[in-house]
């Protein structure tokens, strides 16, 4: 498959009065179109920074980011970024929240509204269009945040610990839902997570970062045998699951 995203020798540091923090050092990475990739690594190793660079919110100090073989700044590929917290605006209804991105980009057409309505119906929020975010459960809020991102029809989806605010049960459910949504739409997705099991369950590839300054320590392909179609749930039941878990856990802990 074609690479949709490649990073070559990407470096990034933060500067404050107290000093310099090298967050990422010589990161090289290729991501195939339509694949689901997870990034794991110790806290503070630069995972969120990596997503900020890919989304274009920050520019690498050194190195290049290519999207479909064009420099990121000139690319027309659309990148959606779902942040850790849902960041729904309390003064807007769910429907208005979901339209926020389209509104800001001045792309609010009748067709897009239809798309958003379909997404809301499909993912169980149809009856909550006019509710305020505070009336939604944690899982529903996270789904609303995902629909807000999907409404922009991104080709690449960046997910920064999207489930970390949820309790375990909801986390598994929403994880399953979101996986299906993304697969259905054939998007490329990069998921940052602290949860090794979640990474294996959702991704075809798990990228392990070293502690700060973050570089790529290892990339592990996940191949599991499942009875039915592969979903996070069936993957968790696959026989290979625990050996992947141990492998990644060891790599993360003996640093």
């Amino acid at each position, binding site marked *: 498959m074609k690479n949709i995203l490649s990073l070559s020798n990407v470096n990034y540091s933060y500067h404050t009065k107290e000093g310099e923090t090298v967050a990422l050092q010589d990161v090289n990475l290729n991501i195939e179109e339509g694949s689901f990739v997870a990034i794991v690594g110790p806290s503070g190793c630069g995972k969120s920074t990596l997503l900020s660079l890919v*989304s274009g*919110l920050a520019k690498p100090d050194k190195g290049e980011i290519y999207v479909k073989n064009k420099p990121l700044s000139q690319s027309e590929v659309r990148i*959606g*970024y779902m*942040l*850790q*917290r849902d*960041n729904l*605006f309390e*003064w807007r209804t769910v429907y208005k929240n979901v339209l*926020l*991105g389209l*509104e*800001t*980009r001045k792309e609010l057409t009748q067709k897009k509204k239809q798309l958003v309505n379909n997404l809301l119906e499909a993912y169980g929020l149809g009856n909550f269009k006019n509710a305020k975010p505070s009336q939604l459960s944690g899982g529903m809020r996270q789904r609303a945040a995902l629909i807000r991102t999907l409404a*922009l029809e991104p080709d690449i989806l960046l997910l920064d610990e999207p489930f970390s605010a949820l309790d375990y049960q909801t986390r598994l459910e929403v994880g399953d839902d979101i996986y299906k949504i993304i697969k259905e739409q054939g998007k490329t997705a990069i998921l940052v997570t602290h949860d090794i099991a979640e990474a294996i369950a959702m991704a075809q590839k798990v990228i392990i970062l070293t502690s700060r300054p973050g570089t790529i320590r290892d990339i592990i392909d996940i191949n599991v045998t499942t009875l039915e179609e592969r979903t996070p749930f069936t993957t968790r039941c696959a026989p290979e699951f625990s050996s992947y878990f141990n492998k990644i856990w060891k790599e993360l802990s003996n640093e």
Partner: protein
Amino acid sequence: MSELQKAYIKQLKHYTVTITAFRFLLFTSFIALWEISARLDWINSFVFSSPSRIMKTFIKMCNDGSIFSHITVTLGETFFSFALIVTLGIGAALILWMFKPLSDVLEPYLIVLNSLPKSALAPMLIVWLGNNAKAIIVTAISIAIFGTILNIYTAFSGTDPEKIKLMRTFGAGKLDIFKKLVLPASLNTIISNMKVNIGLCLVGVVIGEFLAARKGLGYLIIYGSQVFKMDWVVMSIIILCIISVILFKLTDMAEKLVKKIS
């Protein structure tokens, strides 16, 4: 409804009625005591006035229409300065928020100006601007504007950085971030600030009228005290009380309205 709930509701009603009754009692006995003391010459009604004298003065001034022009002038100046404070306050806070270096330069000055007893500026403003409504309005504005700017700017700059990041992922510029995020997120602060400001504007207008006016309730108070017409003074103070209650109720209603539509 269960019996206990019914009993509770009944008790609650009873309590509210009692409180209202005592409020009314306090008011009427105060008025009655005042009137009786004046009638029986326990107090000098020339200095302390009396409810009946105030009523008489009020009715007389209603008949010749003069009281209405005083009230209109004071209210007009209050509303005008309030409107200016709202626009100037939000506008200035927006500019400070847009240009961080500017706000860093100006912040200490704003803090000093805000902690200054602003009524001290009034005589100077009147010398500069003359004995007119302009001076009165500027005085009223000077009392509330610095606090307003600081207050609203603090609310603006306290906007959740994660939400700003979200807006930036949509490619939003500063003005978009302001319109869609910062302003609505600060609405509560702005409204509670305005609730305080309407009262401050009235204070400022009265101070201004003390010093430079030919009309208005503040003028009536100063003039009345100079010519020893205490009936005018006390009546004006009572009217000011009523006005400030009405203004407060109005802002309360405006607050509820804004909360409902937003």
